[in-house]
């Protein structure tokens, strides 16, 4: 399958290893992966601030970069959530529609489209805490949100991680509480954002988690900032890195 690789701007800048793991894993799974070099961002930072006019040209640029792909895969729930559900600063042309519909988040692509059942090359003998991001859970539907306790339980992320030898998933008190990143919220609402981050990290720490994993590097970036400040013996790791075999 031919796949356009979308690497969100902050992953590109701060976590190249996540991009590399995503690329390598997709190739392992038989995809023919191309990374359009001109790509920048999905437009979410501006759109989330209400600045639709400023988001428009970035969204248009995204479509331009990926218009020749039937399938685009990106390792970020929040960016893909934006592209699929809120990407409306530009006119909804057939081309835009095709790109929006064809853009898949990494976990759902593996779980729903490729239906990957095992990761024989992977091994991760650690206690892992799963952080499903808000946009992944309540936007893309990676898992049953905790609010809908009366609905049947499911979790695509958990399904994938369950196939990694040695990995032990740890339950925490508030399964899908927001980590407080929230895009520019993390700086405009510093005190609340940081307190949410501290509380989230402590929930994992209390339960003996060694690695926090997520489909969203932005949440992990936030929690890593807290972990490093508090000098806690924990690490963060993107799910693509675990599924690709472990930290690289």
């Amino acid at each position, binding site marked *: 399958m031919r796949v356009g690789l979308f690497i969100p701007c902050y992953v590109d800048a701060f976590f*190249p290893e996540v991009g590399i793991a995503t690329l390598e894993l997709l190739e392992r799974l038989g995809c023919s992966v191309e990374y359009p070099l001109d790509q920048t961002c999905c437009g979410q930072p501006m759109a989330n601030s209400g600045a639709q006019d400023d988001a428009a040209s970035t969204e248009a640029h995204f479509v331009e970069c990926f218009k020749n792909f039937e399938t685009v895969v990106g390792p970020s729930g929040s960016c893909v959530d934006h592209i699929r559900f809120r990407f409306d600063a530009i006119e909804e042309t057939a081309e835009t529609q095709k790109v929006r519909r064809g853009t898949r988040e990494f976990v759902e692509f593996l779980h729903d489209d490729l239906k990957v059942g095992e990761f024989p090359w992977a091994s991760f003998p650690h206690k892992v805490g799963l952080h499903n991001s808000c946009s992944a859970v309540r936007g893309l539907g990676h898992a049953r949100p905790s609010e809908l306790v009366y609905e049947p339980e499911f979790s695509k992320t958990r399904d994938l991680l369950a196939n990694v030898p040695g990995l032990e998933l740890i339950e925490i008190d508030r399964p899908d509480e927001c980590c407080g990143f929230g895009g520019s919220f993390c700086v405009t609402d510093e005190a*609340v954002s940081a307190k949410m*981050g501290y*509380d989230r990290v402590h929930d994992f720490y209390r339960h003996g988690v060694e690695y926090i994993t997520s489909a969203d590097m932005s949440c992990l970036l936030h929690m890593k900032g807290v972990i*490093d400040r508090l000098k806690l013996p924990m690490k963060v790791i993107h799910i693509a890195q675990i599924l690709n075999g472990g930290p690289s």
Partner: protein
Amino acid sequence: MMASAARPVDPEGRAARFIALVEHETTHDRLVWGMRQNRDKAAAGVPDWEKLRDLASQIKEHTLSHLDEYLEQFERNATKLGTQVHWARDAEEHNTIVHDILSKHGVKSLIKSKSMLQEECGMTPFLQRRGIEVTESDLGERIQQLSHEPPSHIVVPAIHKLRSDVATLFAQDLGTDPKNSDPHYLAEAMRENARPRFLEAGAGMTGANFAIAETGGFVVCTNEGNADIGASVPPLHIASIGIEKLIPRASDLGIFLRMLSRSALGSPLTQYTSHFHGPRHGGELHVVLVDHTRSDRLGSPDFWHALKCIRCGACMNTCPVYRRSGGLSYGATYAGPIGVILDPGFDLDKYRELPFHSSLCGSCTQVCPVKIDISDQIYKWRRVMAEKGLLKLSKKVGMSALGTTLSHSTLFHGGEAVGESAIAYLPRFLLYNSLNPWGKHRELPTPPKQTFRQWYIANRRKA
């Protein structure tokens, strides 16, 4: 929408001050999250909760889209029961109508149960300025009144306070022992203090949770029975009812009652569900139907769904930002997610910052028993603020620069030579955009030697 000369509320700064009161914030988060957990258990215990949500939402949407008919039907049926119905376009008309009724009866003091609508209208200060003594009969609301603060939560108005705060307050106002913060002791002291006021009051005021078009009656839900004492002891009962409180039939009530207290506190019902159908023997019953911006909202395609709200507070309980902020940080009648989408409708300028006091986690939308798209509305209010030029300057300039850079690959990547790339600092703009607030409580990531793009060019680019 009304313009305002008031300075915009600064929810971020207020929340930071609440968080600095460590014990207050941690206790508040724990108690309010506890209500969310109780709600989960209660919802899981009702078969077809999701169907109930759908049904409740549909009934509200139907009623709101035929509101004129239902309001007139309610008026006809209420009048038949002997209730005197009044119409108020805005807060001032509401307050004037209430004051006129009280004046006509020579009322000098009244007791009232909690009414968010009366809060909205600023009724208490209005009446107090005209020499009428107003006593809140709900314990939490009375605590707030003695503190000269508005309620911080729709259902539990003083939840942001510690027991010791209440002990200090009551020691000042009621002469209790400031060191004794036993809830029974404090509640008893308030009972002793309030009872005589209840017995002497010339009028009782309530709000309403539901007004039934088919019967002309209305329903008030409380956990303390305090609405009943207000409605039963004084000869005059005045109820303020927002026009969105209508439901068509008495049989619809069961759906909402099943959800209201379960969503709020996790209890099957409020302790008291009081039905009022006409004045009691020898008494007078007045209903004031209040618009106060509701018609404007009804005409807004993006925001009219907020009128479905039944004021359960579930969105506040689940909101991670509300739990850390405390309700007073919103500086408005309504706090939490529902406040963020309601308050700007009252005063766009004053509440311009509220839509940004959210991480957009979306949990509010999931717990709402009437399926209001709260999170989406928060997002849309941000657009309104941007369109009206009400973004903070730092945000305005920053987003425009970011938008330009991110739409031009060469500006963004700065060419392909290692080290030239603008991307190494651009996302950091988000973290550093003013005074580097990120670094106050969190470490910055160390930039890697190579971006992903640089790695790709070096390792994978086809010649």
